[in-house]
């Protein structure tokens, strides 16, 4: 048996000798892979290969030796995993020895060592020995790029697998590597070398006395100046080098004493990119440096920044970086604050930026001021007063001349100033309540007086800015105690008729109040302060406004307008959602009796000419205030018990079906639904539901209050759909049945939009309503088949109602849910595009537009219909439809180009027409759609 095996082994070695000869002497490349494959398959051992190479490895001719070693190395590169430990030891010895050989041989030797550096069977101690040999024998920088790269690879491989052994070399390893990379110029090698240096530092290899050398050998590349050659196949970008060098330089505080002078020098560089790189490197250093490293350099760094005059914005950005750094230090060492010495210079620089005409500079100035203020104990009260003065001025900053004066959110400088006010006021409440709030209050008062003489837009917008500045600064409880009375006082002044106030003015005050309420939510005490101060005042104003009086002040009428009530509802809701349950219970014990029993005792001014009985009284003004009750009770936490709930629910149902005033009956229906949604399952809930269903059924029968009964049905359905109540499907069916109602059908179709969308005032998560996250998906699955079926069965004149309902549902649905259903729904959607109702068209277009982007393959099947219908709709009489149709034409370009190309000439011709649309917004969409169609299949796109 043994003899047979030996014979078998001998037979193929003959072939091996042939292959080796072909490679070494015949200079053919193919045999190397063949030999490697045979070794891998087990036909020969590595030892046999070495034996076959025998004489060529010892040939006196360097070219032959090189060729021999090359073959061995190539085999090892593919087969290193098969090597036994014993073989590895021999091979390493051999290769180390060969490092002394002729330079022609070295590349192949390095390849062999690279193969061995990957070898798992490498016994301990040999990695160090290999590296020592390389450091000693090879002058790496005189090798070609590829061979230098091989050396870096050997080092990297060992660092990954033999970290402990290498660390045993101590600082010799670091020193050896410094010599290896010293003078490296190739970007590919530099990326690897930087990575090695980074690992040396971050994995805590011993640097010994060579910190400065290691710094020198890397920092000489700073700042990186490299432009990749055209058509560079290696794809190395300047940015890659910058980032990897920055990672090295900023990796350790031990470089600080060398790096900082370099950065200071480069900050003064003529080249902008060098300046910026320095700044960004400095910022990166902040992540690892402590105060110790930076404080000695601060004066000279500061001086060089001061010298800069051209790039003021860059300088400020630098300062901003510094200040963030300083913020970090302040946690480190409470006693030493090296920045204190520069404080005055810093402040003057920042204040200068704040008065600069350039918006960009102002913006950075404002950000810097905010960071400066965040440094503990840095700013004196004098600085703060100045800063507040600047912020006051900036709060009234005019917008660019081009934009309209009343759209107040547009000016970035002003927005930043308001934000900074908020941030700083939280830290320095005294400075703001003594220097800002009084000035703003005075400004508002002046506005009140001026306005008796007419209402110019400039004054109006000035007052608006005052209101915004007041709410922006209300970030500290003590400031809220100053600003809230100012805002409420302003509202009362308007009510007393001391000024002519329009709807928008009152709404603006409410918006400011709402923002203050939002800021109070974080602090329970402020929250309660706001609630118990603002709510009685608002309710008193509203109740007074609702009283029948001979002479109505202008504001009284204004206060009862739907929009104003909605703004007040939002204030009341925001001031209620975060109340603690026991405080909320105190409040509900006053407010519910106010509405049910007319108990006005808690209102600040409560001498009214007659009783407040919104549920009994015939006056529509009083009934309208049910909206405010809704804002309050529907925002309460779920566990707050509502007194007289039974009576309240009955009154609400009654009022909801009262035909006199649509807005108060809707408010009552919403309030009922909001309360219903939060009630725990049980007998009480069932009773209220029965009450509502009976009322709805009675109301829907022919009569005067069908539309009110429908509204109640809709809101009750929504309340139940949101919480997955079992009765919800029954109510949804009832609603769907109404789609074919000649009178209520269109309203029912729109109702589907309400069911699927998020409300802002009631049934919100913020207001503690029970909203299940998947309710839309569930609604879709439960109801879309019935809608589709209903559509097919419906008579011609009510078909659009089904389509409208359907497109509302699809429109609000997350794309991933819709996509799998798409093929079945698409034909219906395409039919909906031909429907003459603008709302259906619009809703369908907005449903199709994202589908074109998400599901181009499915949509491609209908490209013909889509192109025709979109183009038709692009000349619809409705501007919104034209815009949506053109957006769809644009989205069509996402379909596969070959599908679209046949339509390109036709589309480009057709889209020339909307380029001349009378509406600019339509032209804009036509331009972008046509532009994209031009690019289809065209070179360069």
């Amino acid at each position, binding site marked *: 048996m043994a003899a047979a095996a030996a014979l078998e082994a001998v037979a193929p070695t003959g072939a091996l000798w042939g292959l080796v000869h072909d490679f070494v002497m015949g200079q053919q490349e193919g045999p190397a892979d063949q030999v490697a494959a045979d070794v891998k398959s087990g036909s020969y051992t590595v030892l046999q290969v070495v034996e076959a190479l025998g004489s060529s490895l010892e040939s006196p001719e360097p070219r032959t030796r090189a060729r021999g070693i090359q073959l061995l190395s190539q085999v090892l590169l593919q087969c290193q995993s098969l090597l036994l430990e014993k073989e590895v030891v021999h091979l390493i010895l051999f290769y180390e020895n060969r490092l002394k050989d002729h330079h022609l041989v070295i590349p192949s030797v390095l390849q062999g060592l690279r193969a061995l550096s990957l070898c798992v069977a490498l016994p301990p101690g040999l990695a160090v020995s290999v590296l020592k040999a390389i450091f000693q024998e090879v002058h790496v920088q005189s090798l070609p790029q590829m061979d230098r790269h091989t050396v870096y690879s050997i080092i990297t491989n060992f660092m990954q697998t033999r970290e402990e052994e290498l660390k045993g070399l101590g600082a010799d390893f670091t020193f050896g590597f410094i010599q290896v990379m010293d003078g490296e*110029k190739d970007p590919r090698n530099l990326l690897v070398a930087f990575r090695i240096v980074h690992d040396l530092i971050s994995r805590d290899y011993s640097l010994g006395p060579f910190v400065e050398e290691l710094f020198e050998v890397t920092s000489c590349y700073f700042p990186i*100046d490299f432009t990749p050659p055209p058509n560079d196949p290696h794809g190395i970008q300047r940015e890659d080098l910058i980032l990897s060098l920055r990672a090295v330089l900023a990796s350790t505080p031990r470089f600080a004493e060398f790096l900082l002078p370099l950065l200071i020098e480069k900050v003064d560089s003529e080249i902008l990119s060098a300046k910026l790189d320095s700044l960004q490197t400095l910022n990166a250093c902040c992540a690892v440096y402590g105060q110790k490293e930076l404080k000695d350099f601060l004066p000279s760094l500061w001086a060089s920044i001061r010298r800069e005059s051209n790039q003021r914005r860059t300088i400020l950005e630098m300062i901003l970086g510094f200040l963030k750094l300083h913020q970090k230090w302040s946690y480190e060492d409470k006693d030493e604050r090296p920045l204190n010495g520069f404080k005055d210079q810093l402040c003057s620089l920042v204040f200068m930026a704040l008065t600069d005409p350039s918006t960009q500079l102002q913006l950075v100035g404002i950000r810097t001021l905010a960071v400066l203020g965040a440094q503990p104990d840095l700013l004196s009260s004098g600085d703060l007063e100045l800063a507040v003065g600047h912020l006051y001025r900036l709060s009234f900053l005019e917008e660019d001349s081009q934009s309209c004066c009343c759209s107040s959110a547009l000016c970035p400088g002003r927005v930043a100033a308001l934000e900074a006010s908020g941030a700083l006021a939280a830290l320095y409440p005294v400075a703001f309540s003594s220097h800002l709030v009084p000035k703003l209050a005075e400004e508002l008062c002046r506005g009140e007086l001026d306005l008796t003489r007419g209402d110019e837009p400039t004054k109006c917008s000035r007052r608006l800015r005052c209101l915004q500045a007041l709410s922006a600064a209300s970030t500290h409880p003590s400031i809220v105690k100053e600003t809230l009375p100012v805002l409420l006082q302003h509202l009362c002044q308007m009510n007393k008729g001391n000024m002519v106030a329009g709807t928008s003015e009152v709404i603006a005050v409410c918006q400011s109040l709402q923002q203050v309420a939002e800021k109070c939510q974080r602090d329970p005490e402020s929250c309660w302060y706001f609630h118990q101060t603002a709510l009685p005042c608002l309710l008193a104003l509203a109740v007074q406004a609702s009283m029948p009086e001979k002479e109505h002040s202008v504001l009284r009428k204004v206060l009862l307008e739907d929009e104003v009530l909605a703004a007040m509802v939002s204030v009341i809701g925001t001031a209620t959602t975060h109340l603690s349950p026991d405080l909320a219970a105190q409040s509900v014990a006053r407010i519910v009796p106010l509405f049910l029993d007319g108990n006005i005792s808690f209102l600040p001014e409560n001498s009214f000419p007659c009783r407040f009985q919104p549920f009994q009284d015939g006056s529509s003004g009083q009934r309208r205030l049910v909206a405010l009750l809704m804002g309050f009770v529907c925002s309460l936490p779920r566990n707050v018990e509502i007194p007289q709930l039974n009576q309240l629910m009955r009154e609400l149902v009654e009022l909801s079906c009262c035909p006199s005033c649509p807005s108060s009956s809707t408010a009552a229906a919403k309030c009922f639904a909001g309360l219903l949604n939060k009630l725990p399952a049980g007998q009480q809930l069932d009773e209220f539901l029965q009450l509502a269903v009976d009322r709805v059924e009675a109301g829907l029968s022919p009569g005067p209050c069908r539309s009110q009964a429908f509204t109640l049905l809709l809101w009750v359905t929504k309340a139940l759909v949101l919480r997955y109540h079992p009765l919800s499907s029954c109510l949804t069916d009832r609603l769907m049945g109404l789609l074919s109602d000649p009178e209520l059908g269109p309203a029912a179709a729109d109702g589907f939009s309400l069911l699927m969308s998020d409300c802002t005032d009631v049934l919100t998560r913020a207001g503690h309503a029970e909203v299940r996250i998947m309710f839309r998906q569930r609604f879709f699955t439960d109801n879309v088949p019935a809608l589709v079926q209903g559509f097919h069965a419906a008579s011609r004149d009510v078909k659009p109602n089904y389509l409208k309902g359907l497109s509302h549902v699809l429109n609000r649905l997350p794309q991933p849910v819709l996509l799998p259903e798409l093929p079945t729904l698409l034909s219906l959607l395409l039919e909906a595009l031909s429907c003459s109702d603008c709302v259906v068209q619009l809703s369908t277009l907005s449903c199709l537009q994202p589908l074109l982007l998400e599901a181009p393959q499915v949509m491609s099947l209908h490209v013909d219909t889509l192109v025709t219908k979109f183009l038709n709709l692009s000349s619809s009489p409705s501007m919104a439809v034209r815009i949506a149709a053109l957006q769809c034409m644009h989205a069509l370009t996402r379909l596969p180009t070959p599908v679209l190309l046949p339509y390109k000439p036709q589309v480009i011709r057709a889209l020339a027409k909307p380029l*001349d649309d009378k*509406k600019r917004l339509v032209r804009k969409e036509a331009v972008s759609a046509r532009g994209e169609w031009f*690019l289809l299949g*065209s*070179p360069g796109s």
Partner: protein
Amino acid sequence: MVGGGGGVGSGLLENANPLIYERSGERPVTAGEEDEQVPDSIDAREIFDLIRSINDPEHPLTLEELNVVEQVRVQVSDPESTVAVAFTPTIPHCSMATLIGLSIKVKLLRSLPQRFKMDVHITPGTHASEHAVNKQLADKERVAAALENTHLLEVVNQCLSARS
């Protein structure tokens, strides 16, 4: 190759460090624009919005950021169906001037109603071969021929593609 500390530029760009200008914001939508009934005439800002986002052929920047186009250098009359755009090359010897002009011209051709007569020219006194370039841009046949050239069309399309 990377120079150790020293500077080696590639010399590929004619103007490697151009001054960069701020981009203007989106045009705010007015109440009039949202009103179905009110016609909005084509004005200078609308034309400027068409051309300001054209990419420069050699920088990753827009013509607006390089101040090559400015709103004040756009003249338009909607009733007379005329538009004139002057553009300012970043340096007087810029060899890209014709290409930039061509991109502006093509953008306007693709974006404006056919009734418009358009004139694209170099801001007087800002380029060495101002007249030659203007003449080329005004010549309809040469513009058409240029767009038949696949390579030119490719570059123009790149200038007109939305930046990703």
